[in-house]
């Protein structure tokens, strides 16, 4: 672990962003910056939080590693295992179900030849189902990184997958410009 830890380090720009974030909270309350810092870390380190990354965040905030673990395991947006370059999170709650979310999930499973919860062999895609993302009026929808893809149809979700396959890892912080009509 010790050697691995030494290699974990934010880029200069991420580090200065982290410092700016910590400064938003009163003196002595720097632990408040934990969630924003974990988002930053997840985006810096390949879309997931390894124990070494969590330890690094603990050191930045001068808190105990266990304080980071107990938080990271509570919130569903933090991936505690590696995920594909494009994490497809399809909303499955009532309003999206009413507009065909189950068909979207099935079509993605067929197209990628994986089941919900799995990652494609080439490491490009992971498929998950999630709960209401606040887009019920533009259902069905999925989130990929920081981007919402809304008003999906079985056809448009196939186009989306083809376009994403040609792209680098989807950003968790910046939305992408892909348009699937």
């Amino acid at each position, binding site marked *: 672990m010790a050697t691995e830890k030494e290699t974990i380090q934010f880029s200069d720009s991420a580090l200065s962003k982290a410092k700016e974030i910590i400064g*938003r909270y*009163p003196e002595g*309350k720097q*632990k*408040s*910056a*934990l*969630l*924003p810092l*974990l*988002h930053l870390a997840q985006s810096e380190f390949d879309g997931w939080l390894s124990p070494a990354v969590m330890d690094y965040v603990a050191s930045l*905030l001068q*808190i105990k590693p266990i*304080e980071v673990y*107990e*938080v990271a395991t*509570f*919130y*569903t*947006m*933090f991936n505690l295992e590696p995920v594909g370059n494009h994490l497809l999170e399809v909303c*499955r*709650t*009532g*309003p999206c*179900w*009413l*507009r065909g979310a*189950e068909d979207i999930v099935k079509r993605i499973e067929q197209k990628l030849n994986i089941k919900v919860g799995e990652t494609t062999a080439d490491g490009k895609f992971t498929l998950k189902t*999630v*709960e*209401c*993302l*606040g*887009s*019920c*009026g*533009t*259902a069905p929808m999925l*989130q990929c990184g*920081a*981007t*919402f893809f809304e008003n999906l149809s079985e056809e448009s979700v196939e186009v989306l997958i083809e376009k994403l396959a040609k792209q680098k890892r989807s950003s*968790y*912080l*910046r*939305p992408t410009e892909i348009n699937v009509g």
Partner: protein
Amino acid sequence: MGRQLLLEHIAVPGIETFEVYRKMGGYASVEKALKTMTPDQVTEQVKNSGLRGRGGAGFPAGMKWSFLDRKSDKPRYLVCNADESEPGTFKDRYLMEKIPHLLVEGMITSSYALGAKTSYIYIRGEYMYVLQILEKAIREAYAAGFLGKNILGTDYSLDLYVHPGAGAYICGEETALLESLEGKRGNPRLKPPFPAIAGLYASPTVVNNVETIAAVVPIVNLGGDEYAKVGVGKSTGTKLISASGHINKPGVYEIEMGLPVEEFIYSDQYCGGIWKGRKLKAVVAGGSSVPILPAELILKTAKGEPRLMTYESLADGGFTSGTMLGSGGFIVMDETTCIVRNLWTFARFYHHESCGQCSPCREGTGWMEKVLHRIEHGHGQMSDIDLLVDVAKKIEGNTICPLGDAAAWPVASAIRHFREEFEYHVKYPEKVKNPKHFEIEPFVSSKQLVMV
């Protein structure tokens, strides 16, 4: 279209920028409040307006503000609840995305009234791109002298930050939100103490919904009494409704309180009627937590009066024949909808989102999900239906926070109004094997279908 107090300028090109927003009269409430009113006078206007919290509970905002402990020597905080995770609700996202300065303006005016020097907007982590829109608006407001030191040359100073959550519905509950903002797990706190006495960092804190804070802008501009003239009785002002499901025009609509539900569903100005020329079966009127109503009870009360979009009219009949306005998440279901399957998705949601502190909620939500799964998939027994009612009853009122109630109400109400449909699943397991069973052959119960 009725009067628009929040979204009037939403279609103006460039309204997301400071320049255009200001040109359309934006930030007038900050000028008026900081230059011509004392903080207590602003609170007084909010009291007079009759504004009730738009996050779901409908608690009078002015009263909440007046509970804030102003004698404490600790700093006071205003925290905006932008966690918006109640299924069926997407109005806050719409407002923040399209007209972010309205929320920023509301935060400044409200923070002034409460004497807060630092305020936070807690936004759900999935809205990361909306967070960036808000941060841009905040930067513009700083640059224009509406945030930071000595705003508009007065001695009032304010810093405003946006803080992301990370995927937990429970963090919408105000004390869980404060825990989360302190960098902890989102476990709701036992109350009292209420946040007004000991909230963020154990300091006096007000937590308000995005729409509540935005409504402070027209209240200060018009005056509380003028604002109160819009709407009906104790439901004053306008309300943002998130309309979803089987309608022709899903979206966010600003309505004047008092609009008839029937007009809201069928008028082309709003939902535009049921899609595909189908009939209305049921509505969940205020987000997934509120009781579901069959068509005839959402359009008219049990007394036969037209149902209106107000806190009181939607609640008319109590839980026997009424529901709640809640967060304004209006979910419409046509005649092909399987009530059991929809409910199963809700039960799965609450089980997934329970923080696990109280055993009735942690165990009960899991149990309800399991039993509903079994009924929906044709493996249920008749006794399962009463088992669900029993579990729901045992959760309700026995938990630290209202998530337990929110999980129980949809189950209890669906069985109350659609019991035959649950029985059908038990009696005819073969007929419900296909997940789209009622799309293939709608479940017919003459009492539930309404022709318009």
